[in-house]
């Protein structure tokens, strides 16, 4: 999947299997990613688990779980709010489009979550106060979660090199000679992928490039919508409107970047 971190780093990652996205004193989010084609390094999210931890007199612990073709508009126990506590309504699930789009408001921690199913796969987006993001007791364990640290370097896919996906302002380029990721059957010529993505994503930013990559990798046109809705979620959730579109990819592992002079 493509990941945009809390610090606005944009990466495309393999991260096959179960990986933590968020893990702090209030919230735990974990995703399970599966290859989009047998043997492909490109994966997409097939399962999502969100745990809202018990919080004072506001909410009991609540678990939300979504899988492919199963996007419930309720927590695992069937409820739609934070339980029996005084402030239970400070956690609420709202169904936007049945089976396709769910929004969860966790007002007690100032957090909004959007979960969607686009095509066969899930997308996740969250807005959370920085203070809550960093609220952890044990800083060491915080290193592993992707929304804060990004993907480990060996899990990152440089998708421009793989498919010759055009950078901003460049025309379509022919695929690089060597390609570590097996490409999809030729169902999507370059020009068609580019045209399809440009329809929904006129700005040639990283969301547009991710769209082209996904079409070339899977041949599945639904991924056009995945990139489109991801950008729509950014528009709704990101507080800095100047940072909606990203153009620069990040390659280094944020931890290393932090260590760099």
């Amino acid at each position, binding site marked *: 999947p493509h990941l945009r971190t809390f610090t606005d780093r944009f990466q495309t990652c393999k991260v096959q299997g179960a990986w933590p996205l968020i893990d702090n004193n209030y919230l735990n989010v974990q995703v399970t990613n599966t290859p989009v084609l047998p043997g492909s390094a490109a994966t997409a999210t097939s399962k999502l688990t969100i745990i809202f931890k018990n919080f004072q007199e506001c909410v009991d612990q609540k678990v939300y779980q979504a899988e492919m073709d199963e996007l419930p508009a309720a927590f695992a126990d069937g409820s739609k709010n934070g339980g029996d506590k*005084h402030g239970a309504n400070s956690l609420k699930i709202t169904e936007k489009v049945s089976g396709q789009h769910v929004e969860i408001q966790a007002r007690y921690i100032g957090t909004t979550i959007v979960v969607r199913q686009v095509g066969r796969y899930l997308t996740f987006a969250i*807005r959370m106060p*920085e203070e809550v993001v960093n609220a952890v007791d044990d800083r060491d364990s915080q290193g592993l979660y992707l929304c804060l640290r990004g993907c480990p370097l060996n899990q990152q896919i440089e998708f421009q090199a793989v498919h010759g996906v055009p950078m901003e302002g460049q025309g379509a380029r022919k695929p690089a000679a060597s390609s570590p990721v097996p490409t999809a059957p030729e169902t999507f010529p370059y020009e068609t992928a580019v045209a399809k993505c440009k329809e929904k994503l006129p700005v040639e930013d990283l969301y547009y490039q991710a769209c082209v990559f996904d079409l070339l990798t899977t041949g599945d046109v639904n991924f056009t919508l995945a990139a489109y809705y991801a950008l729509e*979620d950014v528009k709704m959730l990101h507080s800095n409107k100047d940072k909606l579109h990203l153009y620069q990819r990040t390659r280094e592992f944020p931890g290393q970047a932090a260590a760099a002079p």
Partner: protein
Amino acid sequence: CKILKCNSDFWRATSGGHTEDTPEVCSALRAYAYCTRRTARTCRGDLAYHSAVHGIEDLMSQHNCSKDGPTSQPRLRTLPPAGDSQERSDSPEICHYEKSFHKPSAAPNYTHCGLFGD
């Protein structure tokens, strides 16, 4: 750590002038003690927190306050806006992040994370 909010709530509850008589002071002190207990975990090692806890103990013994009893509410509590009255009227302020955010002078800094596609 929300000890500053506890402090300001206590001063607001006792700044009305007519709280000299003991029952008023004791209920304000019990509310103050309750507030510090709620934020104890996040205030470990915080000097302001520990001095508040000791100060409350001193004042309660000075005024012979019992530990159990009514607690006073901050005097200047803003009324919830119209609308979903069920949620607002019985949801404690601590359950509304933006209201209980301890730096009222600055809005929270929000961040975004997203995962999509393949």
